[in-house]
C-alpha cells in the first residue's frame, strides 16, 4: 500500500463507479440469459465483470492494481444498491486475484495484449472455481460444466482483455493519463 499514491486509488474508485453502473446494467441481461439457457447464460457476458481489473492494471501498472480495483468496484456496486449484498465483495476479490496472479507471473512488467487477455482468463478461472463451489455446478453434467468454463474463458479474454485494452489506450490518447504509467509510455512512444 505504501507505494500507492492516493490519487491512483481514487482514480480506481472513479473507474469503479463508471463500470459499477455498467456491471449492474449487465446483471439483468445475465439473469435473462440464465433463465433461458441456465447458468451458462452468464458465462457469455462474464468478461464484462473483469474489465476494471484489466483497465486499472494496464493504466497504473503497479502490483495489486488488478486486485484492488476489482475489490473497490465490488464495494461500490454494493453501495449503488446491489441486491447481491456483501457476498459480492468476496466474489470481486476472487475475480481480482485471478487477474493479479497473471500480472504477478510477469512480475508486473509485461502488459502486452497477450498478457492482458491471459489476465482476463485468470479472472475467469478463479471466478469459475468460486462459482463451481457456491452454485453447486458439481451436480451438473461434466460436458455442460466444461462448456460453461470454455465460454467464460473466451469471454474473459475477449471482453475483459481486448475491450479493456482498447478502452485504456483510447483514454491514454486523450492525455488524461499523463501522470500514470500508461500515459507516460504512450508519450515516450509518440516522441520516439
Amino acid at each position: 500500500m505504501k507505494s500507492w499514491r492516493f490519487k491512483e486509488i481514487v482514480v480506481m474508485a472513479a473507474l469503479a463507479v463508471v463500470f459499477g453502473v455498467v456491471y449492474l446494467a449487465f446483471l439483468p441481461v445475465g439473469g435473462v440469459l440464465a433463465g433461458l439457457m441456465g447458468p451458462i447464460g452468464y458465462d457469455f457476458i462474464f468478461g464484462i465483470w473483469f474489465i476494471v481489473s484489466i483497465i486499472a492494471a494496464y493504466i497504473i501498472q503497479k502490483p495489486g492494481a488488478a486486485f484492488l480495483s476489482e475489490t473497490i468496484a465490488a464495494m461500490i456496486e454494493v453501495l449503488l444498491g446491489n441486491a447481491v449484498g456483501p457476498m459480492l465483495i468476496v466474489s470481486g476479490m476472487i475475480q481480482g486475484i485471478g487477474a493479479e496472479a497473471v500480472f504477478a507471473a510477469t512480475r508486473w512488467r509485461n502488459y502486452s495484449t497477450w498478457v492482458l487477455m491471459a489476465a482476463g482468463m485468470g479472472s475467469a478461472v478463479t471466478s469459475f472455481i468460486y462459482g463451481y463451489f457456491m452454485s453447486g455446478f458439481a451436480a451438473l453434467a461434466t460436458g455442460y460444466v466444461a462448456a460453461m468454463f470454455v465460454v467464460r474463458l473466451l469471454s474473459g479474454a475477449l471482453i475483459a482483455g481486448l475491450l479493456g485494452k482498447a478502452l485504456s489506450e483510447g483514454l491514454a490518447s486523450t492525455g488524461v493519463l499523463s501522470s500514470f504509467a500508461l500515459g507516460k509510455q504512450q508519450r515516450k512512444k509518440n516522441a520516439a
Partner: protein
Amino acid sequence: MFLQQLNPSLKALTIMVFIIFLATIFEPITPLLFLIWTVLITFLFGKVSWKKYLLYFSPFFIFALGMLWTSIAFADPPINPDEAINILSWSLPTENVLTALALALRVLNVAALSLLFVFTTNIVHFILSMMQQLKLPPRIAYAVLAGYRFLPMIRDELKIIHDAHLIRGVNQAKTPKEKMQNYKRYAIPLLASAIRKAERTAIAMESKGFTGDKNRSFYRQFTIGKLDFIFPLIMLIGFATAFFVSKQLGF
C-alpha cells in the same frame, strides 16, 4: 427494528458464513426451511416493505427457474436411475429432480440472506464499520466513499457529452443500433472526465490533511456489543433446526 441496529460488519460476516454453509447442501429441505426462516426474520425484526422486497426478489425467481430446469436437463447421471417421478408426463429420475430443487432453492435462499442485509443496512455505515472493525485501510475506504459521490456527477457529465455531440450534429440516434454506437462514443469522454475529477478530489483531500493514517479519529463510531451476537445465534438456530429436520426426513 432490531436488524437495523446491528453492527454492519458483523451482520455481513454472519450472512457470508451462512451463504458458505448453504453451498455444502445438496438436498432441498434445508434450504427450503432456512429460506422461510430468513424471510421470517427479515420481516419480524427488519421492518421491510413487502412491495419493495418482492420487487427485488422477483429477478432471482427467473434465475432460480433457469437453474431448476438446466440442473434437470444437464444433470449428472443418477446413481439409481430406476427411481423416477412423473411431471407433466415426463419421467425424471427422482435424484436429479431433488438436486435441481436444492440448487434452485439455494439461489432463492442466498438472495433472501442478501436482501436481509441490503434492506436493513446503511451501506455507507457498512464501509465505515469495515474500516473500524475489519481493518479496511482508510485510504481505500474514503476513496470508495468519494467514488460513490461521483455517481450524480457522472450522470450530469453524460448529459453534457450528449448535448455537446448534439450541438455538433452527430447525435441523431433513432434506431437501437445507432444508440449503441452513441454509447461507444460516450465511453472515452466519460471515463476521461471521471479520471480528471478523481485526480482533483484526491488532491483536494490530501491538501486538507488526509494522510490515510490508520490512527485517526472517527466522527461516527461503530462498536460490537453483546446484542450484536444475538443475530448470528438466531440464524444458527434456524439453520441447525432446518438441517436436523431434513436429516430426520431421511435426506
